[in-house]
């Protein structure tokens, strides 16, 4: 008849008390299950949505902060000085961030529109809608994607696949080699193959035509504005324009991913600097302050660096841990602000559910402590008897603990069943209440966009996020309830234990006798 057997017999033979305690634990269990269920469902929804999102972080200029700073300047000279020294991302910092083991690939990339000589761009399919109001105007038909490092994010993710030839390498980047890769579609459209030459210019052909005299005076021929690039590879891309998008109707050919050409950033910088040099000769009045080094630096300074991480769930930690390494007015953007705003109803629910759980747990500890302490008075005699025959106080406490654990586990087991049945419905009700009482998030225009750049962030809506919200009672949650219950009982037994430790068997038994 050890203390475990005694505990079982006590629970069985004191049915009223056991039933009351079981009901108490049952109610506590239900509240905790619902609270934790809602909280976990909210967290799960966020995690699942996060997992669906691309694991990308952008290192970029924090224009909101910079503009706020400039607006705060009252002196116009200071403001102008600030404008002229607009913040830029730091190349060393950008490269240093790639040391983080979570970074899988990154794009240190700039883009530019150019004109392909005798190149017919791949049609978008909007030509009829778009029409052509001014047939004499020549618009850029190609978009350069130029990277400082060959291991592009798109190659890693499988967005691009080299189907013929090869990608450019680091040596070609370092040497500014005149090499280029074009898409399969562009190659087919123009019957181009690996080894052929693609001729491009970044000088506006419209300007060349309209100001022909100025070019002649500056002794600049059309050939001077052109650059021959060796096609070293042809690649396929899974990207395409969305014909259902609002902007599709107005899209220019160069906006199609099929009309992208890939080259080393240094090569593109050479083209840009050369173009600037030519422009300064043709239009010296426009380029009086031209600084070619600055022009090269500008061409080689991306608006933002995109990092691809190994896991979408590592994004927040990456941002938090590396934010301190950045200079002023730059930031790591994981599109978190949007996500946070979308997740606000879930966060609010999770917060209140957490508070409910804590209140219930604290109340449970108080109630169980009180019940145990009060019933202890009626059990002093029994404890005195046990102590008189040499049962240690620790075993007496152990028996009390086991008695509570037995009824707690019965209560929690019943609560797991009822909680499972209720959780889904209650969770939906709470979400309905929350979403109707809190205005749905509508994405706001941030005020600035990165021109001609790929949107690397996965677009998710609040509906996508809320669709992932499912309150259910998982085995893990049930395990947590039992663990929490054990903790509650352990804490609740502390005060009664002190009371037991102070008991004197002689005193108890003599009083009884």
């Amino acid at each position, binding site marked *: *008849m*050890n203390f475990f057997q*005694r505990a079982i*017999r*006590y629970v069985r*033979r*004191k049915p009223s008390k056991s039933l009351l305690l079981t009901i108490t634990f049952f109610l506590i269990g239900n509240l905790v299950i619902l609270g934790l269920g809602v909280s976990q469902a909210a967290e799960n929804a966020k995690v699942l949505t996060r997992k669906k999102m691309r694991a990308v972080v952008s290192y970029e200029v924090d224009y909101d902060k910079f503009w706020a700073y400039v607006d705060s300047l009252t002196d116009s000279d200071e403001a102008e000085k600030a404008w002229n020294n607009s913040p830029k991302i730091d190349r060393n910092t950008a490269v240093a961030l790639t040391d983080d083991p979570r970074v899988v690939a990154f794009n240190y990339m700039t883009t530019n529109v150019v004109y392909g000589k005798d190149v017919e761009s791949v049609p978008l399919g909007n030509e009829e809608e778009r029409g052509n109001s001014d047939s004499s105007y020549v618009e850029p038909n190609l978009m350069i994607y130029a990277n400082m490092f060959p291991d592009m994010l798109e190659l890693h993710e499988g967005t691009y696949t080299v189907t013929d030839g090869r990608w450019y390498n680091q040596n070609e980047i370092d040497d500014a080699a005149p090499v280029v890769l074009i898409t399969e579609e562009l190659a087919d459209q123009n019957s181009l193959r690996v080894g052929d030459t693609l001729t491009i210019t970044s000088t506006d052909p419209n300007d060349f035509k309209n100001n022909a005299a100025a070019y002649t005076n500056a002794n600049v021929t059309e050939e001077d504005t052109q650059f021959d690039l060796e096609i070293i590879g042809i690649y396929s891309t899974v990207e395409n324009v969305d014909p259902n998008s609002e902007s599709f109707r107005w899209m220019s050919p160069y906006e199609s991913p099929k009309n992208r050409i890939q080259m080393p950033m240094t090569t593109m910088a050479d083209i840009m600097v050369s173009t600037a040099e030519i422009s300064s000769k043709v239009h010296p009045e426009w380029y009086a302050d031209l600084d070619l080094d600055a022009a090269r630096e500008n061409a080689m300074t991306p608006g933002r660096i995109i990092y691809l991480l190994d896991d979408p769930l590592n994004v927040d930690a990456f941002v938090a841990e590396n934010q301190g390494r950045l200079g002023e007015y730059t930031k790591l953007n994981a599109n978190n602000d949007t996500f946070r705003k979308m997740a606000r109803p879930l966060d609010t629910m999770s917060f209140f559910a957490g508070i409910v759980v804590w209140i219930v747990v604290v109340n449970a500890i108080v109630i169980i402590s009180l019940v145990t302490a009060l019933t202890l008075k009626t059990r002093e*005699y*029994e404890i*005195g*008897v*046990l*102590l*008189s*025959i*040499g*049962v*240690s106080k620790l075993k007496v406490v152990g028996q009390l603990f086991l008695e509570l654990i037995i009824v707690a586990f019965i209560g929690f087991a019943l609560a797991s069943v009822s909680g499972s049945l209720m959780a889904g419905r209650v969770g939906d009700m709470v979400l309905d209440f929350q979403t109707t009482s809190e205005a749905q998030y509508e994405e706001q225009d941030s005020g600035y966009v990165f021109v001609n750049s790929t949107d690397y962030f996965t677009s998710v809506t609040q509906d996508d996020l809320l669709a992932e919200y499912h309150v259910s009672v998982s085995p893990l949650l049930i395990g947590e309830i039992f663990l929490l219950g054990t903790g509650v009982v352990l804490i609740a037994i502390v005060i009664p234990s002190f009371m037991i430790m102070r008991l*004197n*068997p*002689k005193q108890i*038994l*003599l009083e*009884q*006798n």
Partner: protein
Amino acid sequence: MSTILKLENICYGYTDGSYKREILKHLSYEFEEGTFYTILGPSGSGKTTLLSIMAGLDKQEEGKIYYQGEDIDAMGLYKYRRNKIGVVFQSYNLVSYLTGLENILLAMTETDNPIPKNRTELAYALLNMVGIADTKAERMVTHLSGGEQQRIAIARAIAGNVDLIFADEPTGNLDTATEQEIIRLFQMLSERYGKTIIAVTHSNEVSKFSDHRVLLKNGVLNDL
């Protein structure tokens, strides 16, 4: 016969405000093995206090108690109570939510003394020995009469395979007939099984049948 329990210079008193009342004054006594003792004395003489101290339920202020030559304080009072002694109280002091049988098994489980493996059979045998039938052994103790409960209490006291049994007014709540039966039980335990019984009592009937009567007066024990 050898000494089973030796009291040496025991002192104990109560403090009532600034006044200290000394109950036991340098009390010394030796109890022999296999003897049935009764301790008599006027009300308030400290009989129950002395029994509590001897049973390890309370601690003396001064002096030593030796069980078979071993200091019980050094042994540890829990261990002493668990392995060396059994106590029978006036109001039986059984665990109310257990049956008679389970109360016996409880004492058997707690002791460190060697107990045969067939504990349940042994418990039934013990209960039969004190006059409790098997059917009554399986009843909750609260459903038994006072005499039956006291018999179970006596069986529990010896269930831990101990040689020394203390009894505090063991027949105080019983009628005369039952009192006789309990006295005979103590006699049997002493004579047949060599147990030492030390009973505190007001009852002349009980003391009349004991082997040795001791008077507690003025804080000391004297043979009668």
